[in-house]
Each structure stands twice: as structure tokens, then as C-alpha cells.
């Protein structure tokens, strides 16, 4: 039985899994992070004293496990948003696919590289 010609395996699964992982993380931790960093910390309520002070934040980001947490949360949130925006722009026919990928996946890739560089730069 013959059907349409099979095309080559797509590399979309890579971006789709990053999208899925980021979606799961943002659903679990996004609202909590917004509450803590956006409301509780600036208003100075509901958190232990000095919870988000510079020293505390730096110590967190210098701890290897803390580094991993920062990387995973920032990078995967961006990969999630990048995929969502890419598909929406593709649906809207906003431009050639390569350009759209550069503007979405490209940003996520740059942010990921920057986070890794900064996390390494602040030392352990």
C-alpha cells in the first residue's frame, strides 16, 4: 500500500520537549515565583527577614544546586515561551520560518547561554 512520500524526521521534538518541560515547570512554579518576587518581597510581607536580600540571593546562585535551579527555571521558561510564540507567529504567517525561529528559539538560546555564562562567572 502506498501513501504520501515519507519526509525526513523533524528536529521539532527537541523544541517541543523543551516547550513541554517549560510548560510543566511554569505551571508548577510560575505563580509562586511571581507572588514571591513580584508581591511579597517588594511589599515586605509573608517572607522571612532578608529572604531576598542580595547576600541571600548570591549565596543561592553560588550553590551548585541553586545554580541548576536558576538555570532550569529561567531557560525552560524561555524555551516554553519561544515555542508558543513561534507557533502563534507561524499561524499568523508573520514571516519566513527561519526568521521566526531566530526571533523565538534564537532568543531562548541566547538567554540560556547568557544564564550559563553568568552562573559560572559569579563563581561557586
Amino acid at each position, binding site marked *: *500500500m*502506498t501513501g*504520501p512520500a*515519507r519526509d525526513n*524526521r*523533524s528536529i*521539532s*521534538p527537541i523544541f517541543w520537549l523543551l516547550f513541554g518541560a517549560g510548560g510543566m515547570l511554569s505551571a508548577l512554579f510560575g505563580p509562586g515565583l511571581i507572588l514571591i518576587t513580584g508581591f511579597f518581597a517588594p511589599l515586605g510581607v509573608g517572607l522571612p527577614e532578608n529572604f531576598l536580600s542580595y547576600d541571600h540571593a548570591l549565596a543561592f546562585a553560588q550553590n551548585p544546586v541553586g545554580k541548576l535551579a536558576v538555570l532550569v527555571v529561567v531557560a525552560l521558561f524561555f524555551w516554553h515561551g519561544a515555542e508558543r510564540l513561534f507557533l502563534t507567529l507561524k*499561524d499568523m*504567517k508573520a514571516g519566513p520560518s527561519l526568521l521566526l525561529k531566530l526571533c523565538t528559539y534564537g532568543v531562548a538560546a541566547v538567554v540560556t547561554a547568557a544564564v550559563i555564562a553568568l552562573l559560572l562567572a559569579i563563581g561557586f
Partner: protein
Amino acid sequence: MPDPAKKTIELRILRYQPGVDAAPSFGTFEVAGAENMSVLEALQTIKDTLDGSLSFRWSCRMAVCGSCGMMINGEPKLACSTFLRDLPPGPVTVEPLNNFPIERDLVISVGGFVKKIESIYPYIMPKEPKTVEQGPYRQTPAQLAAYESFSDCINCMLCYAACPQFGENPDFIGPGAMALLQRYNGDSRDAGRQKRLDTIHGENGVWSCTAVGICSEVCPKSVDPANAVNQNKTNSAFDFFLRFLRKE
């Protein structure tokens, strides 16, 4: 008081005969006593009493055969289960299904769709063939429930008419064929899962989908093809990485 059964409804129908007409154009018909008619009954009335050359597909008149899909006021619907009384007042616009070549008037060409259906091995491939004497392949209600909703597809192609990605890329396997693939891959009696998955790993396979989800919204049988597509994005994504561990 005017008798509602005598109400006249205007239908604007896209007419086109390739090779004869330069381009598709609308014909307008007034159907008397149409208040309680389905769009299909109105089309049949037009064909019987006003213009015998009007062409459209239909068979069962009860949303089972999937033949009478068309764009009604711009939305993909089955003409037999869309009633004129439920549509907004004013003329009703009837066009062939979007995204398909027109064969004549409301009849579209389904060859590409049939090829897609054939390409995903739309039959059970048993693990071990059984003779009739060995009896039937048994299945529990839970095993049936795992795929049953996907087996409700009537191949009406409304999901293809709604899908913006199929509109962009006619080679995209599309929602209906993906629902059928899931119907067989979800069947406990089947052993053809990998063979079917291998047909959808490309951009024309499951990865053209941008998760718009309108396929499931327009489905007249609540098949939820978007769910089938999503499940197979997961399956194809795992296969992308796990294929190296697989024993061929």
C-alpha cells in the same frame, strides 16, 4: 400571522464547474417552506425543483456517513445535521469545504485524504495471527475505552477544512488521519504501533501541527483529533531520542 412552515430562505451557493467556468461564483436560490429543513434538505429541494445541475455529496441524512461536509456560513459543518432554523436570519452561504480542490459545485476532491488514510496502515496488525478455530481476539472494556472515541471518526474532513496548517501545507497528514492512527495504535489487539509511528516523524507528519485545536471544535462526532495529534507528538518525541535504544 405568517405560517413559519411557509418561510422562504435564501441560499447563496458557490457554483463551479472546472473546465467550463472561468472561476467559482455564487448562485442564489430562494427555498420556500424551508423553516424546518436541514441545509441538505434545502439543497435537495433546489436540485429537485429549481436547478437539477447543482452538485453535492450526501448519503445517510443522519450524520453517520460523513459525505455532506461543506462550509455553511463560513464554518465546516455537516449539511444534514445543520438546520436552517438554527442559523442567523438572512441569506445562508454554502460553499465547498475549505482547503480542498473543487470537483464541481459543492463536491470536493478527496483523493489526497484517502492516500493519507491508507498511509497509516488503517487496519489491525495482530501480534500473532489466529485461525478462526482459535477464536476471537478478546478485549476488556477498559482496553476498548482506550481507543473507542477515535473509532467514531466518519471521515467527513471537517477537521481538514478547519485546520490552518493543512491549508498551508496540503501534505500535512492532518487531524483525521492522526485520529485513525491513534485508533489502531491504542488498540490492545494491534502490534503495528512502531510501523505507524514511523510514518509521522517528519514535518508533514505530526510536527506540522501548531496546536490550534479547531479540528476538535468542528468535529461532529466529538472524536477530539487534537488529542490524538498531541499524544503522538509525545510518542514521536520520545521515539526521536529512544530510537537508538530500540532493538530493530
